[in-house]
């Protein structure tokens, strides 16, 4: 099933033409209505008239997360606030969140791309979607909601959490499609098994999983344990939310809805575009957003583009599963964490050596962080209870900084590996 055959199966030539028209229009809008872009373009002596071909996009400046944050709350909006009908934000763990503003037309586009995405998992009018993404400022809940309703399916807006209720509703309402993070999907499967629920008897047929990095092994696990087709969705709040790209039933990459989001892959060192098939950082430009056009947003996600013909019949460019980050950002249980935040918390403790290592694991499908800290005379005592108090204090300081519980392991001085240049601060054992 293809939701919008005209757009999704467009010839490469027609697509390029459409993209160029839309790029020229969005650059003009950004230049005219967003003071930030006017200044950036003027500084580089470029204007909308310099975009004559799609390759000219390389003349345009990049937009970083910091740029968006500096414009907090509404500085990136290209329309008066009267025209904005909804806002969402990122979680804002590293400072102020970034705000995304949507006009009515933007919500329509969001519903459209999400309808395409859900259709790829086989969603039809008769389906019942259990939407276990969080509702609220987070984009996950509303994105699936709009897409599901556009198709005419029944959306169950259960939101995240309350696992027993999720399982009850899943059985009683005969849910056919599950949308949540892949790790929560596995957790649901585990709890269902422990509760003696025969997952083979559930009516589930597909799942649309995203909002965190996951692996092929996790897919196989989800498919086997929940007896579904598990497909990968990609998106980010800065661009629109979920629905930037989605894996079709062939499961060999995610089709980017490139009539709305123009993708480039760059080498994060040289900042130049790389060829198709080569790994690099995904950069996205919104081609149709009215409320908040974003030019060349550096996602920091590492992937590669692939323009081979897809067996599903769609012609839109595909990207690989995200394999990493071009910065040191970690996503732990869906929460963004930078090692620098943990370092900041550690530096608040007198006498602590700023030598640490973060170990991330996923023992039972849920992420765990262990922070190894070197002891020093200031952190040591002949009494066990004092050492434990010190450990607890470090745990609280980190919790206050990142909003997640961590386990502290005190290790002997000079026992953490020192490397020349950049220290290895993070060991991610999740195999993402």
């Amino acid at each position, binding site marked *: 099933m293809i939701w919008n055959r005209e757009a999704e199966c467009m010839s490469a030539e027609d697509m390029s033409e459409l993209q160029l028209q839309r790029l020229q229009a969005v650059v003009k809008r950004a230049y005219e209505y967003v003071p930030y872009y006017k200044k950036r373009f003027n500084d580089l002596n470029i204007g909308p008239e310099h975009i004559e071909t799609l390759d000219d996009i390389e003349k345009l400046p990049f937009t970083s997360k910091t740029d968006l944050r500096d414009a907090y709350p509404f500085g990136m909006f290209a329309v008066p606030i009267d025209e904005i009908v909804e806002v969402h934000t990122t979680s804002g763990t590293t400072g102020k969140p970034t705000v995304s503003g949507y006009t009515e037309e933007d919500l329509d586009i969001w519903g459209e791309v999400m309808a395409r995405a859900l259709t790829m998992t086989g969603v039809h009018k008769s389906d019942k979607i259990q939407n276990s993404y969080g509702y609220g400022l987070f984009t996950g809940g509303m994105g699936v909601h709009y897409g599901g309703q556009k198709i005419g399916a029944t959306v169950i807006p259960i939101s995240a959490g309350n696992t027993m209720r999720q399982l009850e509703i899943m059985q009683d309402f005969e849910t056919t499609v599950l949308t949540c993070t892949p790790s929560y999907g596995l957790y649901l499967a585990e709890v269902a098994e422990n509760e003696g629920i025969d997952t083979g008897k559930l009516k589930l047929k597909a799942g649309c999983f995203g909002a965190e990095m996951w692996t092929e092994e996790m897919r196989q696990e989800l498919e086997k344990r929940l007896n579904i087709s598990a497909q990968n969705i990609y998106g980010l709040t800065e661009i629109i939310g979920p629905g930037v790209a989605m894996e079709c039933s062939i499961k060999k990459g995610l089709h980017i809805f490139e009539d709305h989001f123009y993708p480039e892959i760059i080498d994060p060192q040289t900042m130049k575009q790389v060829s198709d098939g080569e790994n690099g950082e995904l950069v996205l430009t919104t081609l149709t957003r009215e409320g908040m056009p974003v030019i060349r947003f550096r996602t920091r996600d590492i992937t590669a583009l692939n323009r081979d013909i897809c067996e599903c019949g769609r012609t839109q460019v595909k990207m690989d599963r995200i394999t990493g980050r071009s910065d040191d950002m970690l996503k732990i249980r869906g929460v963004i964490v930078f090692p620098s935040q943990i370092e900041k918390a550690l530096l608040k403790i007198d006498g602590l050596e700023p030598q640490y290592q973060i170990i991330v694991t996923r023992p039972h499908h849920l992420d765990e962080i262990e922070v190894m800290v070197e002891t020093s005379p200031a952190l040591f005592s*002949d009494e066990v*209870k004092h050492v434990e108090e010190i450990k607890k204090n470090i745990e609280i300081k980190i919790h206050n900084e990142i909003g997640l519980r961590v386990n502290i392991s005190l290790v002997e001085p000079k*026992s953490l590996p020192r490397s020349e240049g950049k220290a290895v601060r993070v060991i991610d054992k999740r195999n993402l």
Partner: protein
Amino acid sequence: MKLKQISVFLENRKGRLWKALNILSLAKINIRALSIADTSEFGILRIIVPEPELAKHILEDANFVVKVNDVIAVSISDEPGGLDSVLEALNMLDINVEYLYAFVEKKGKNAIVIIRTEDIDAGINALEKGGVTVLSSEEVYSL
């Protein structure tokens, strides 16, 4: 009448206790008394040695975290009820014991108990009032 005790942080890893003791052995430092507090995540080695400052330095040179603090050593008769009288003396004056460990003298007549109270001076005071023999460092080292 206070006695210096050395505490060493031990990571919960194979060979760490041996490493710490090996360093003392190579420096020919004789351990008079020893105890280990272990938790599921780390251990604390506590020792009484005749040269606490030297022991501290050589352990620190080997990257161990070391703390030197005061403890109390008392001598009790090595017979039933010996320790009871010590704890009774502390209890009378509401002194909390953080930890203690004991060893038997070579001659076998007395036992030595190392006691850590939160306030060492108050601990000594209570013990002396209760008629317990508090030992000096020299007395302990020469045992």
